[in-house]
C-alpha cells in the first residue's frame, strides 16, 4: 500500500474513533464553580473601586451625622430626666444603669487583669492570620477556578 494510502487509512480510522465522553462530574463542577464566582462577585471586595469609595464615604457621613447629632440627643435626655411625669421611668432606668455599671466594672477588671496584657500580641496574631488566610484563599481560588492558564 502506498504511503499516501496508508496515511489516508490512518486518517479515516482516527476520524472514526468514538468521541470520548465527558465524565459525569464535569457538569456539576462547572455549575458549582459558576455559583462560587457569583457569590464572590457579591462581596464588598469585588465591588468596583468607585462603589467601594462611595460606600466608605456614606459610612463616614453617617458617623459624622451621629457625632453631630449627639448634643441634641443629650439635650433631649436631660429634658426627659428633669420631667416630672418621667420620674418613675427615670427610677427604673437608674436601677438598670446601676446594674449595667456593676457589670461594666467587672468587665473592666477582667480586661485589665487578663486581656490587656496580651491584647497587643493578640491583635498582631489576628492580623497575620487574616493576611495568610486571604493569600491562601486567593491562591486556592485561582487554582480551583481554573487558573491553569490565561488565554
Amino acid at each position, binding site marked *: 500500500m502506498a504511503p499516501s494510502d496508508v496515511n489516508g*487509512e*490512518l486518517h479515516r*480510522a*482516527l476520524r472514526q474513533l468514538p468521541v470520548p*465522553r*465527558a465524565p459525569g462530574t*464535569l457538569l456539576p463542577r462547572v455549575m458549582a464553580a459558576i455559583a462560587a464566582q457569583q457569590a464572590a462577585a457579591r462581596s464588598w471586595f469585588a465591588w468596583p473601586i468607585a462603589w467601594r469609595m462611595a460606600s466608605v464615604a456614606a459610612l463616614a457621613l453617617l458617623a459624622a451625622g451621629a457625632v453631630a447629632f449627639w448634643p441634641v440627643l443629650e439635650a433631649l435626655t436631660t429634658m426627659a430626666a428633669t420631667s416630672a411625669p418621667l420620674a418613675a421611668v427615670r427610677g427604673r432606668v437608674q436601677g438598670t444603669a446601676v446594674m449595667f455599671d456593676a457589670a461594666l466594672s467587672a468587665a473592666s477588671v477582667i480586661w485589665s487583669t487578663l486581656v490587656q496584657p496580651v491584647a497587643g500580641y493578640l491583635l498582631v496574631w489576628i492580623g497575620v492570620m487574616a493576611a495568610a488566610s486571604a493569600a491562601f484563599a486567593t491562591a486556592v481560588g485561582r487554582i480551583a477556578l*481554573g487558573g*491553569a*492558564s490565561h488565554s
Partner: protein
Amino acid sequence: MTDAARFEAFVREFQDMVYAVAVRLLANPTEAEDVSQTVFLKAYERFAELDANPAAPGWLKTVATNISLNHLSRYRARWRFFSELGSDEQDARSGERGLESTLADGGAGPDEPLQLRERDAALEAALHRLPDHQRVPLVLYHFEDKSYQAIAALLGVSLAKLKTDIFRGRETLRRVLTDHGSI
C-alpha cells in the same frame, strides 16, 4: 428557561466535544476535566454571545485547544523537571486506566463489530501513549484539521521538526492498524 438552565443545557450539548479535544491533547482524563471546566467558565463569561450561536462549537474547540496547550507547556514541563522519566510510565498506566473508563463510556455502539471496537480501543490507547511532541501535532492535524504551517506556528516549532514528529507518531499508530489487519 432561566439563564442557569440555558447554560446547563449548553454545557450538556458541548461537554463531550470539549472534553474530547482536551483528553486527546493532554492524554490525561483528570487534567482534561480541569481544562474542560476552565473552558466552560470562560464560555459563561461570554454566554450572551455564544448562546444559540452557530460559531459556538468552533469557539469552544479553539479555547479548549489553547488552554490545553498552555497547560502542557506551563504545568507538564514544570512537573517533568522534578519527576524521573521512569515515573512517566506509571503516570501513563494510571492515566490509561482513567482513559479506558472514558472510552468505555464512548460512543461505540454494540452494533459495531467486536474487531472494530478492539481496533478503535487499541488505536485510542496508542494515541494516548505517544509522547506529547508526537501526539499533539497528530491530534491537531487529524482531529482539528489544522495545516502543518498552522500547527508549527501554534507550537512554536519548525516545519521540519513537526513533520518528523508527525511521521514518527504515524508509524506507531500504523503498527496498530497493521496488527488489527486494517492495512
